[in-house]
């Protein structure tokens, strides 16, 4: 049995497969199911200074392992999270001996307001999601959270037409890790029989996730990993154990999954973990960290 636990941000995760922020971790009960399902750590859905007003419908399956969404952040208020949901999730994490991460958004002022309250709940690290690519705003945002909390912080980046590594390098002084990538959009799928949008956003647009974006995610992870020295968490299109290995080879130190869990259920973590373990055994590795950065190594780049 290969070693699957990973050390990251001063925390030990029992395996490298974590949830990505989404409805799969949308309340305390789902966080508990995520822990029971076998995730290596927990991460709660993005909380902001107010509840999101989510257009309905907000999710549509695309193919067997893809999806379009017009989700925003949590539809629960910050008070509901601070008074109840975080406690349920934290209790589940402690029971399973795994770290608990929060996700918050979005502007510098919002992060300054919500960050310390979330940290006071006892979370182990905080991820913040960035949906824009303007360098000055990126730095302001990262710095605002850095100055507001003491726990490790993770910048979740949005895919980019240029080199995502350049943007990551700009905020590296303020953050402890990166998560790459958010879903890609806008994209669109219509109901041809009724000539109607499938999603409730004003133009029917949604953001694409799952298998269709895996090659975009791998490119982004590679570009960030070759440029920065802090750890990268790979997110995007993981549907089977080999996809986890591919993210590691591109430079990831852990991964997050959302779409495949939404479509296959919370118990799919255990199947992914077992599959990764089997793959490592079959290929003669005794630790998942041995495959990390293999793609960069092949190109003669640093690991």
């Amino acid at each position, binding site marked *: 049995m290969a070693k699957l636990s990973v050390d990251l941000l001063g925390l030990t995760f029992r395996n490298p497969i974590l949830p990505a922020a989404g409805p799969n971790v949308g309340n305390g009960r789902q966080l508990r199911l995520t822990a029971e399902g076998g995730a290596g750590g927990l991460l709660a859905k993005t909380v902001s200074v107010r509840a999101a007003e989510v257009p309905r419908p907000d999710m549509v399956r695309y193919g067997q392992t893809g999806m379009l969404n017009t989700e925003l952040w949590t539809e629960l208020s910050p008070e509901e999270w601070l008074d109840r949901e975080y406690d349920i999730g934290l209790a589940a994490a402690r029971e399973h001996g795994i770290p608990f991460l929060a996700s918050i958004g979005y502007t510098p002022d919002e992060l300054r307001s919500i960050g310390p309250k979330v940290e006071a709940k006892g979370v182990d690290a905080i991820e913040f999601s960035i949906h824009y690519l303007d360098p000055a705003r990126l730095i302001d945002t990262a710095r605002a959270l850095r100055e507001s909390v003491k726990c490790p912080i993770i910048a979740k980046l949005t895919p980019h037409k240029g080199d995502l590594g350049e943007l990551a390098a700009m905020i590296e002084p303020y953050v402890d890790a990166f998560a790459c990538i958010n879903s890609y959009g806008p994209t669109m799928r*219509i109901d041809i029989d009724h000539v109607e949008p499938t999603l409730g956003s004003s*133009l029917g647009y949604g953001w694409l996730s799952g298998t269709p974006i895996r090659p975009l995610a791998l*490119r982004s992870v590679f570009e960030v990993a070759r440029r920065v020295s802090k750890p990268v968490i790979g997110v995007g299109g993981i549907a089977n154990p080999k996809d986890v290995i591919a993210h590691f080879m591109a430079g990831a130190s852990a991964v997050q999954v959302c779409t495949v869990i939404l479509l296959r259920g919370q118990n799919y973590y255990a199947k992914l973990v077992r599959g990764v373990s089997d793959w490592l055994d079959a290929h003669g590795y005794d630790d998942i960290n041995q495959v990390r950065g293999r793609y960069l190594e092949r190109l003669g780049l640093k690991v």
Partner: protein
Amino acid sequence: MANLAVELNGLRFPTPVIAGAGPTTEGAAAMAAAARGGAGGLVAHTVLPKPYLLTAEPSVVPYGRDGLLTNQRGSHVSPADVAYPTDLGVPVIASLAATAAEVADLGPRLVAAGAQALEFATVFLTWPEVVEALQALRRAVNVPIWAKLSLRHGEDIADRAAQIEPFVDAFVCMSGFGPVLDIDVDADGASRVSDPYGYAWLSGAPIHPIAVRTVFEVARRVTKPVIASGGAMAAREVVEFLQVGASLVQVTTLPILKGPTAYGELTDNLNEWLDGHGYADVADITQLYLKKWRHGQRVVITSEEAPRLDEARCTGCTICGLVCYWDAIVAKPKAMPIINPDRCFECGLCVSACPEDALSFRPRTEVTLLP
């Protein structure tokens, strides 16, 4: 049998399903095979000022069952050797990628070689170079010019289209998506496509929702015709492209995966769809969605609806229960799922995930607890 013929830029296409530029339209034999296979028009493989010499294989690999990754930039045939077949009964369009300085020679050369229109691939140039090259091409030729747009130039694709609209006669949305990277973990972490960084361009079903959005967005903005390209693998996607604003649909990945008869099969399936839905002419569905939704819809942020079960269709597979994150569906194998409309968030996942199409949204008051 619905009428499928489309006229665009003065050219008559017997079906809106046409062959996009790629290895399946390289050379006279391949183009003849595509025409025989039922393509309504042919965009020949992209000609470059200097032929593209493949230095690295593999250059085209499958991505999943219905996608491709490629590093091919264009044809390996030299401009001097290009000759297009003119006796195939469908329009022949040349595709080219070149700078402003190069199009003055290359454009007229391709017209002389038999091209009835030119498709200009923007993906390899910076945006200022694209604008300059299209202006030069407009001065150099009298045939219609199609600009094939790429998201590489940014997400504001409609702004880009509007900027070049004076110099072109139609827009093609969109080029392959990229650059992207896919890693073969069983080959010790090698890229699945050869390139200095292993980068590739993605096409086929994975990029279809991206292409649909770009077609819709460009069609909302410009007055000249839009031609769709990106992941049309079945009649459903052709219909979707036409409804959101396309006049023609290019297919490239599909015939690479399935062979040249794929064009005709797609056309037959389009015909069946039109017949089944009571449309006599493909023009009846063109821009149907665009006209209805170009200004958007009212955004609903509460659950006004919930899924209603069509019991005759339900097989008791339990997928709806598995994908419900609001505890609104209890599904047990071989039984009808129990839907609680009061808990439903109206997220839509169960409706779209149901393999039997047994769920559809209805006002909440019409959805009763089952069974």
